[in-house]
């Protein structure tokens, strides 16, 4: 054993062992590092996908081979064999022909080369000559001579080359003649095999065999794989869809396709994840879709960590408990707290649309999100919460500045206590009596507060008293009117329309509302007689705007008699609910009131001063003050116009960027829910006060959001909207900019939504809700449902898709401003909405844009038929032919029979209709308006056969054009105002 000496300060042996051990250790660790770096889960996915693709290609090859006509193939092979044999017999001939071609090509090559060489010499000499001549040098003549010689040789060679070309063509032709049979057979075989060959080539590329396979394995081998691996991360860099990381916007680098390899390829619809094709390839990911993957990637819509290539790191979010447990087992999934925008769970994906699709009424192909947007508009979340994009929306509740003319204080207090007890379908949420105010003190305080609110409202309301009714109406006639003139497009009388059991189940939120959504636009009228004073109803229905200039309730142009009848009927609709279920009127609690007021006043002044000022007040003053404080605290003025609060800003939190709020900024309290923002939103919507549970807080510090009684479906849809409201700023390049036409359409849609056109009209495939009521009317008369449905279709308001092509824009504008009846048989009336010029123009433009017709001015150059043409038109109109006047009104001349059987006044057609539409309509009315009473005169399958044979040679086209021109002349004063007529 060597000792430590001066020369060796360490024990060499020991050091050797140490170094040897550490180098081995280092080697091992390096190996481990290489392995760890090499072993990535995405590589396994890519290998699996290669196997899948190969399998698929093999299956395709197999099916392609099966489709190849085997019998035909055998015959072709035989043909090829014979052709080859025949060619073999003429071997010498073939050899000679080939040799000849070769010889010609050789000679051609040689002569071509000499030609080019001489040509370049010639060009050089030409240059020399030109230079010499310019310099007037003595060598000019010598150069000229040389040039001439060269030119002669060039000409000889040029001719020779032309001859070679001719010979070559001849030689090729004779060679082709010899081999033509064989070549043709081979080509046929190749054509037949083309599909299979292509697939074989693909297979070789996908799953190479032999040398290529070894080469690829080497390229993908550890350490070597830095050169050019075939397994590699697939990424798209999205400059135009940046991501905000710590206040810096950087381009996204979406690597999702590293594993989701077929997301933009058709054909993998049934493959297991992550290899499935995008389920809406026409809309997303596909190259020709609106959102191609190279431009939009995945995370701009789906969210999640763009650069991640590992399942958990990408922040995949499970959809429900079952999937969460499944993922826990499969991938060890757990929530990643370090990424603020986790991926949207599958059922919540529509939330991703909203950041780009803004300022639209609805987003295409996003039904749940649209439902949320519709709810947001309807319940008016924006009334209390500022939401960017919903800034200037009208208040959702009625104005309360004249409430004493409408309802009694007693009714008001019961209503405020629990609106849904009186009207279960109301939009007004419940504010009082919720779980965070249930202590005995709270109950007394709330009763005092409710009475205070009523005191405030009645104290501040404009003293408006309506005169007594001018007479007594007939309730039976009133009922008929309410159920036929159009009220039921926006309102319902649910107790007449659904069984009590169904309604009770609906109240418990167990079944969907039996009344159509559009008919919940206005309040349910089932108990209106217990709410509103008859004098108010009479004035209101006659002119809603007199009471509330902002109301969206239109004017149905009711006569005083009609209004009296309707009032009489509505007053019969009283509260029929069991007394036990009604909200009782609150009792006064002076002590609780004073205590509460003291608490408020003490916030601003010393308690003794507060007591002193309170002592000075009368009971009424105290009530009114408590009402003011309560209205201020609960923000009633968000939805209602309340005197004294006209300028007060709403009380709710700004929701414009709610979807970007990380879950840890939300107060979960002790609510037993998952700590994610969607779960919090859902809970907040369902049980808004539940986050107070377990907390200690003064009444004025408790949660204030009222309870809307949303169903799970509704709360889920609104949660989607909240998730979609993010702070992400999308660059303009990525947002689809609406064309002028799209903007016109969209602006119209806004009005259609705001005025509930869908309550009566079918438009863009939706609406026509009033039919529900009309069907029930007929069923109440003993008709079967089928019968009632078809009868309702013939008296329902018209389907207005295609209106832009049908009517003249000027007419439509005038009609929207001041509707006049067109269809005398309809009891239902187009109301007067008192649209502004801007609104009416927007609607007309909407219809014109949808049909690509001209807005706003159009001229028509219909020439009135004269002479023989006029006679033919009159003949076609006559009773023995189309008998048009049998149903159609002709100005003041009415058809026979009751108005149900009448049809529109044709003398108005020239003011109203587009002549092209008239022709389309005559040709096939059922196509334009399925179910119309206008019969089809020309059988679409046999136009010629069904045309009157003795008019205009039985030519349907000419007949229809004539009818169009004639209809367009009716009622015109000598064609005075006809477009291009002189």
């Amino acid at each position: 054993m060597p000792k430590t000496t001066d020369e060796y300060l360490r024990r060499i042996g020991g050091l050797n062992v140490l170094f040897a051990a550490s180098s081995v250790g280092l080697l091992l660790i390096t190996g481990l590092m290489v392995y760890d770096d090499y072993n990535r889960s995405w590589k396994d996915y890519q290998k699996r996908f290669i196997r899948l693709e190969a399998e698929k290609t093999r299956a395709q090859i197999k099916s392609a081979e099966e489709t190849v006509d085997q019998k035909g193939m055998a015959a072709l092979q035989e043909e090829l064999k014979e052709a080859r044999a025949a060619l073999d017999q003429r071997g010498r001939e073939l050899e000679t022909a080939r040799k000849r071609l070769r010889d010609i090509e050789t000679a051609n090559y040689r002569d071509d080369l000499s030609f080019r060489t001489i040509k370049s010499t010639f060009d050089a000499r030409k240059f020399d000559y030109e230079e010499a001549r310019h310099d007037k040098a003595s060598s000019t003549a010598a150069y000229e001579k040389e040039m001439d010689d060269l030119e002669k040789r060039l000409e000889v060679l040029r001719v020779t080359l032309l001859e070679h070309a001719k010979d070559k063509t001849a030689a090729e032709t004779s060679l082709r003649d010899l081999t033509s049979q064989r070549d043709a057979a081979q080509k046929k075989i190749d054509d037949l095999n083309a599909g299979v060959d292509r697939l074989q080539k693909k297979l070789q590329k996908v799953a190479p065999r032999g040398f290529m396979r070894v080469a690829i394995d080497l390229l993908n081998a550890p350490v070597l794989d830095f050169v050019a691996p075939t397994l590699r991360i697939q990424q798209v860099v999205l400059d135009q869809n940046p991501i905000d990381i710590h206040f810096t916007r950087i381009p996204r680098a979406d690597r999702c396709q590293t594993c989701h390899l077929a997301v933009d390829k058709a054909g993998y619809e049934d493959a297991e994840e992550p290899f499935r094709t995008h389920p809406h390839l026409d809309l997303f990911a596909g190259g020709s879709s609106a959102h191609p993957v190279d431009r939009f990637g995945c995370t701009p819509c789906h969210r999640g960590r763009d650069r991640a290539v590992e399942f958990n790191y990408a922040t995949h979010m499970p959809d429900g408990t079952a999937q969460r447990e499944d993922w826990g087992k499969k991938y060890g999934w757990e929530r990643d707290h370090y990424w603020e925008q986790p991926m949207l769970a599958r059922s919540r994906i529509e939330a991703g649309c909203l950041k780009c699709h803004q300022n639209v009424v609805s987003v295409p192909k996003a039904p749940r999100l649209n439902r949320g947007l519709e709810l947001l508009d309807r319940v008016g979340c924006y009334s209390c919460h500022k939401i960017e994009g919903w800034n200037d929306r009208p208040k959702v509740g009625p104005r309360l500045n004249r409430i004493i003319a409408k309802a009694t204080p007693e009714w008001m207090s019961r209503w405020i206590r629990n609106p849904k007890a009186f009207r279960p379908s109301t939009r007004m949420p419940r504010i009082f009596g919720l779980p965070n105010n249930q202590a005995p003190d709270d109950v007394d305080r709330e009763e005092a507060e409710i009475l205070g609110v009523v005191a405030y409202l009645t104290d501040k309301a404009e003293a408006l008293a309506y005169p007594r009714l001018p007479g007594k109406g007939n309730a039976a006639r009133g009922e008929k009117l309410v159920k036929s003139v159009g009220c039921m497009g926006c309102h319902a009388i649910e107790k007449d329309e659904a069984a009590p059991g169904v309604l009770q189940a609906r109240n418990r939120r167990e079944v969907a509302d039996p009344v159509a959504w559009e008919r919940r636009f206005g309040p349910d009228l089932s108990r209106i007689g217990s709410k509103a004073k008859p004098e108010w109803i009479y004035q209101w229905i006659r002119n809603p705007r007199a009471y509330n200039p902002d109301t969206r309730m239109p004017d149905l142009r009711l006569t005083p008699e009609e209004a009296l009848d309707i009032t009489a009927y509505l007053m019969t609709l009283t509260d029929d609910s069991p007394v036990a279920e009604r909200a009782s009127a609150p009792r006064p609690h002076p002590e609780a009131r004073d205590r509460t007021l003291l608490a408020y006043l003490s916030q601003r002044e010393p308690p003794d001063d507060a007591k002193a000022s309170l002592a000075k007040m009368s009971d009424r003053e105290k009530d009114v003050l408590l009402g003011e404080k309560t209205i201020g605290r609960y923000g009633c003025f968000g939805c209602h116009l309340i005197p004294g609060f006209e300028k007060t800003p709403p009380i709710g939190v700004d929701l414009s960027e709610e979807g970007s709020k990380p879950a840890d900024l939300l107060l979960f309290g002790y609510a037993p829910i998952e700590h994610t923002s969607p779960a919090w939103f859902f809970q907040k919507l369902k049980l808004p006060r539940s986050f107070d549970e377990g907390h200690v807080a003064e009444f004025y510090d408790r949660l204030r959001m009222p309870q809307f009684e949303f169903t799970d479906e509704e709360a889920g849809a609104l949660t989607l909207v909240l998730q979609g409201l993010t702070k992400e700023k999308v660059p303009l390049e990525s947002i689809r900019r609406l064309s002028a036409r799209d903007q016109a359409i969209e602006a119209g849609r806004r009005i259609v939504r705001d005025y509930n056109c869908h309550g009566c009209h079918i438009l863009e495939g939706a609406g026509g809700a009033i039919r529900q009521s009309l069907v029930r009317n007929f069923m109440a008369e003993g008709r079967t449902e089928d019968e009632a449905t078809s009868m309702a279709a013939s008296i329902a308001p018209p389907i207005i898709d295609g209106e832009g092509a049908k009517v003249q824009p000027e007419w439509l504008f005038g009609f929207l401003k001041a509707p006049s009846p067109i269809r005398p048989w309809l009891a239902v009336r187009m109301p007067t909405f008192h649209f502004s010029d801007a609104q009416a123009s927007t609607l007309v433009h909407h219809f014109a844009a949808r049909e690509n017709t001209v807005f706003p001015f159009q001229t028509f150059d219909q020439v009135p038929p004269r002479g023989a043409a006029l006679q033919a038109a009159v003949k076609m109109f006559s009773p023995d032919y189309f008998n048009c006047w049998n149903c159609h009104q002709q100005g003041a001349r009415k058809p026979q029979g009751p108005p149900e059987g009448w049809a529109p006044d044709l003398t108005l057609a020239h003011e109203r209709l587009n002549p092209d539409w008239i022709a389309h309509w005559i040709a096939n009315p059922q196509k334009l308006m399925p179910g119309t009473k206008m019969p089809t005169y020309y059988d679409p399958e046999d136009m010629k056969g069904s045309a009157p044979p003795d008019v205009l040679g039985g030519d349907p086209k000419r007949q229809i054009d004539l009818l169009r021109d004639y209809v367009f002349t009716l009622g015109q004063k000598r064609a005075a105002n006809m477009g291009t007529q002189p």
Partner: protein
Amino acid sequence: MTTFPALTAFVRKHGISTAVLLATALAPAFAGDIVGKVKYAGTAPTPAKIAVTKDQAVCGKAEHSDESLLVAADKGVKNVVVNIADPKDGKKMAAPPKNSTVDQNGCKFLPHVQIVAAGAPIDIVNDDGILHNIHSFPKNNTPFNKAQPKFKKVMTEKFEKADVVQIKCDVHTWMSGWIIVADHPYYGLSDASGSFKIADVPAGTYTLDYWHEKLGKQSKQVTVPATGSVTADFEYPAK
């Protein structure tokens, strides 16, 4: 051999298909008839008079009354369609040799209710010489609404699928009729006394549907014997 020339002559005269049908019908089949009478428990209503409001000259010739519920003195109901809901032999209803017709005569549809074979042409005749329009309200077929002016005396239509189709005329709103489109032969229509018969039903147990335009649809079970007939009376409850 003696029958041979006779058979040849028959085929020559009536066509092979008729011969085959005849042969099938004559074959010893285990089939029975369903007969019965449909009654109405309520009091027989007096059909309301219908006021003619248009084209008096043609439509006003005869009196019009509501035909939607016709009950005889002994409570038998006319125009009840009785059919097997679940036939098992897959037999199709054959088109009649002559087209079924709907006649518009005196501004009425004649007959008021009739059964036609699915896919068979139906002649719609306008005997009135004024404008009618025939507007169908089918559930399973494509609806149509075709004008039939004077110059178009006959139009031919067909319904491809089994259905209950109401037909109306929008010009004369009181006109109403029903076409029952049958895709199998086991259908019967009650006469003025409420009696009906469905012939040659293969033996077995079936669900029998009773349909009436006003009284609605009701069903009951029936077992058809191998020979003879089964009685399947039915009474609609009072409305």
